[in-house]
């Protein structure tokens, strides 16, 4: 039971301070570059809501290892179990959530939603202390027991899921068992089964040991100790202490803990999904781990659709991301005291450019040609400069023409550095550019009223243009390419038309390249070819607009 409304973390591992309101939501996906603190957030949640009474903490769990500032983790929960909100438990500590504003109040009004805030404090003595807190002055905080925390059903699926397959207390299987009311009263059924097993062992004979035993018995009787009649060999109960932890799920004779990583995680999630049917919080770090893309995608899809509790996942997988909506996403950024949220205008962008969401810097490109061009630029950076956009945390996103302004703003609001690489042939878009610049967006665009294709054919040296023509001819055939250009040309193209550079010819080729439905380049792969070819001749048109754009792009990728 219970779902998380908001979270506060101080001085825990890499997080100095974080305060986040998730609101009333059942599915939360944390994204962010490696080491941004996603796992720390899940860990923090699992620590503050853990049913273990003996959580251990180390000096290294403190932010910067500085033990003089206590670790504080605070969660505010809604949808609380009734057994925790009566007067004898924590009913007198409830707070009120004003749903319209998502603010939690200590001064309760009638239409508020019930909230309990749990706080874990670890000071330099490394002794964790769980309390129920609020800001009402007349009330003293009250400690929360591990038993009560267990009622919240919070479990973390991480790399160490082996214990999830055993029946010991505090594990999800055990919680699942306890939910069956008929069983909870006599929860010894596991131990009983174990005792039966022990009896089986007792009655089985250890014949092959008898000779040795006999020697001992004989010798003992010579020395005056008569142990003859009852001496048998069996297992000492003490050494197989009755311990639920040893009783675990097996696939035939093989314990589940020996299964593959992905399967283990899925089984673990399955156990907990079953548990979460009555509410509860499931935390899954790197949901795609150990899974093929399609299985990861299926898992995310199913969890999102069928979950009754609340699920927190982290992911680096584009396949997972495309299943989600913008409101599910929260972006974690180092040293930032809150998570970034995403505007719903980016919904289309998730499906078209999932990778962009995992970057630090987004280069929003007008369309596929620009994206391709940037890829070509990236190829150049790799071979010539030994760097690449991924190292610099840069991802290219298709702005989809008319939506590019919205995407740019939404990415900016989600805390990314954003560069918009676009044309200047649409007035409506041009009108928005100055306000974007003032918000901190770097804009790399064409000259007024021009588009990328204008600059390609105006700025590139003729050799480069010839390569582009050859590329087009390879795509189609020489005659049709020539005919198309010819139709836009002021006079008739001659036999060696490709050898003579002229403005008229450039203009004709340009016009031919943008004929509706017959565009030469409106595809990412074509764009990449333009990029490759342009960069090859980079030194030859440095002073031209296209050359300057390339410099600006490289500069932004490298430095900004």
């Amino acid at each position, binding site marked *: 039971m219970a779902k998380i409304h908001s979270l506060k973390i101080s001085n825990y591992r890499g997080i100095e301070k974080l305060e986040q309101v998730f609101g009333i939501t059942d599915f939360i996906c944390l994204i962010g570059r490696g080491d941004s603190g996603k796992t720390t957030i899940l860990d923090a949640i699992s620590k503050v809501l853990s049913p273990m009474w003996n959580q251990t903490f180390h000096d290294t769990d403190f932010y910067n290892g500085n033990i003089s500032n206590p670790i504080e983790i605070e969660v505010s929960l809604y949808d609380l179990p*009734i057994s925790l*909100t*009566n*007067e*004898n438990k924590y*009913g*007198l*500590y*409830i707070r*009120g959530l004003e749903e319209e504003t998502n603010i939690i109040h*200590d*001064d*309760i*009004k*009638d*239409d*508020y939603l*019930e909230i309990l805030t749990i706080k874990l404090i670890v000071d330099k003595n490394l002794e964790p202390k769980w309390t129920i807190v609020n800001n*009402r*002055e*007349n*009330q003293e905080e009250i400690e929360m027991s591990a038993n009560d925390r267990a009622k919240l059903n919070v479990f973390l699926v991480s790399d160490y899921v082996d214990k999830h397959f055993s029946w010991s207390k505090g594990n999800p299987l055990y919680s699942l068992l306890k939910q069956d009311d008929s069983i909870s009263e006599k929860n010894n059924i596991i131990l009983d089964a174990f005792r039966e097993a022990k009896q089986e062992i007792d009655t089985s004979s250890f014949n092959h040991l008898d000779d040795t035993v006999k020697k001992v018995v004989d010798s003992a009787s010579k020395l005056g100790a008569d142990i003859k009649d009852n001496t048998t060999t069996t297992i000492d109960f003490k050494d197989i202490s009755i311990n639920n932890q040893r009783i675990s799920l097996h696939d035939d004779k093989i314990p589940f803990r020996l299964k593959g990583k992905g399967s283990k995680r899925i089984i673990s999630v399955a156990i907990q999904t079953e548990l979460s049917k009555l509410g509860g919080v499931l935390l899954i770090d790197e949901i795609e781990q150990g899974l093929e893309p399609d299985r990861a995608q299926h898992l995310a899809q199913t969890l999102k659709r069928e979950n009754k509790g609340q699920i927190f996942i982290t992911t680096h997988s584009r396949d997972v991301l495309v299943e989600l909506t913008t409101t599910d996403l929260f972006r974690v950024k180092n040293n930032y005291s809150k998570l970034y949220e995403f505007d719903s205008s980016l919904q289309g962008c998730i499906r078209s450019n999932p990778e962009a969401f995992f970057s630090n810097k987004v280069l929003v490109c007008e369309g596929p040609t620009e994206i391709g061009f940037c890829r070509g630029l990236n190829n150049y950076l790799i071979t010539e400069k030994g760097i690449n956009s991924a190292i610099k945390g840069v991802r290219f996103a298709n702005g989809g023409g008319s939506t590019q302004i919205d995407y740019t703003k939404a990415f900016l609001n989600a805390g990314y550095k954003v560069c918009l690489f676009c044309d200047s042939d649409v007035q409506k878009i041009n009108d928005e550019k100055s306000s974007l610049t003032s918000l901190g967006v770097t804009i790399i665009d064409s000259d007024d009223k021009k588009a990328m294709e204008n600059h390609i054919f105006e700025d590139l040296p003729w050799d480069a243009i010839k390569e582009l023509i050859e590329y087009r001819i390879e795509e189609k055939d020489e005659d049709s390419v020539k005919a198309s250009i010819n139709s836009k040309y002021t006079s008739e193209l001659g036999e060696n038309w490709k050898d003579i550079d002229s403005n008229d010819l450039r203009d004709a080729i340009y016009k031919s390249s943008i004929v509706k439905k017959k565009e030469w380049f409106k595809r990412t792969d074509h764009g990449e070819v333009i990029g490759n070819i342009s960069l090859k001749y980079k030194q030859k048109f440095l002073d031209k607009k296209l050359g300057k754009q390339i410099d600006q792009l490289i500069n932004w990728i490298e430095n900004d």
Partner: protein
Amino acid sequence: MIDCKEFVSKEKSMLIAPAGFGKTYTISECLIHLEGKGKQLILTHTHAGVASLKEKFKQKKIHSSDYNIETITSFAQKYVLSFYTGIDIPSQENSKEYYPFIINKAKEIFKLKLVKNVISRTYSGLFVDEYQDCTTQQHELISSLADLFPTHILGDYLQGIFGFNGEALVDMQAENDMLEFNNNQYSLNQPQRWLRGNNSNLGLDLKKIRESIIKQEEINLSEFPSIETFTFDERDLYIPYKDYYKEITKLLKEENLLILHPDSTSIYPRLKLVKQFNNRMKLIESIDDKDFYKIAKTADEITNENIVSKLKELSYKLFNKTELDKWFNEKGFKKKREEKDRTSVKHLESLIEELKNDISYSKISYFLIGVKELQGIKSHRRELFSSFLKSLRDADENKILVSDAMTNSRNLIRRTGRKVSGRCIGTTLLTKGLEFDTVAIINAHKFKCPKHLYVALTRASKRLLIFTNNVVLLPYK
């Protein structure tokens, strides 16, 4: 006995239960009926009431998880201190403002949906005992709780005397106020307390007197042989050779005796009697008596400079003046001739010297104990004295103000209740709900309120003595 099963089956029901007619027993029978049907909330007014109900439940082996019993105030206080966010809660010492404030705020808090959820999750039914003692504010509060679960109220309008702070009490006979409860009204008819081998004639006589009081008839005590009636002049009580004085002196041999004084407004007439009879009866103090807080405050004002005068001030607050005058003079102690007295004074003087250098509450308490041991010194207010010593020690140990220590100790008594036993003197307000083997009502003709008189009469379980100047009582004006 009423049909408990039927009584608890009603959403709202009321039981009229005269004093000693088996109300506590009825509540415990109701709980037995409700066993396993969820926790019942039982509210009453006094901690004495809480204690006696608890004891009954224990006897009846009712599991403590089946009920929660509290005073209305402490239940309300629990919620107000939990949920109220304002900073204007009056100090608890200021009981005139504190308690009405708590009830008022609780009324608002109990209207909140979230709080209602907490309460209705915790309890499945409500019993309110001594309903006649509810102020109109408390009645409103109970009414809003009554929306949450079946509610059963028990009480006796003839005992409605709890005029705390002079606030208006609920009128249990009012048609409109009690509408839904009135529709399911039950009543107890047998004077169980006296029939159970105590003094069954007294029980039947009290039942008759009750009927007379309800009809506002005169009460001719000569018609009730089970009551020992004496007609004496009021003044004779203070004159040792008069019969009034002698009868009271005789009574002081009783093991379990309550002397009831008709004047509830002032403590002095009772103090006077305690002195008169040489401390042989114990004064029942009001939990909220201001003197407890005043004396604690005096202790807090002590400095190295004023220590001598403050110690004297404390002594005069606690002990008999005439005797103190024999020991103290303007500067300090008088010179004493006898060796024994000189040693005692020397001991006290050395304590004063130590205190001048270093204020210690424990040493102040040693000083006061020393004073009490001086020849002739007595404390007529034993509870005040012992509470004060305890607060001084507590303040010293826990490094808090004596006032705070006193507030804590008074609150503790308020919460846990206290056992009143032995030979006591008190008023109807201080002893309502209590029961004594022998009760002597002095100056019974002074009772001007039928309810007070009825409460006084019904405190006795075995022997009732009435001292009056007129054998006919007319307590109606």
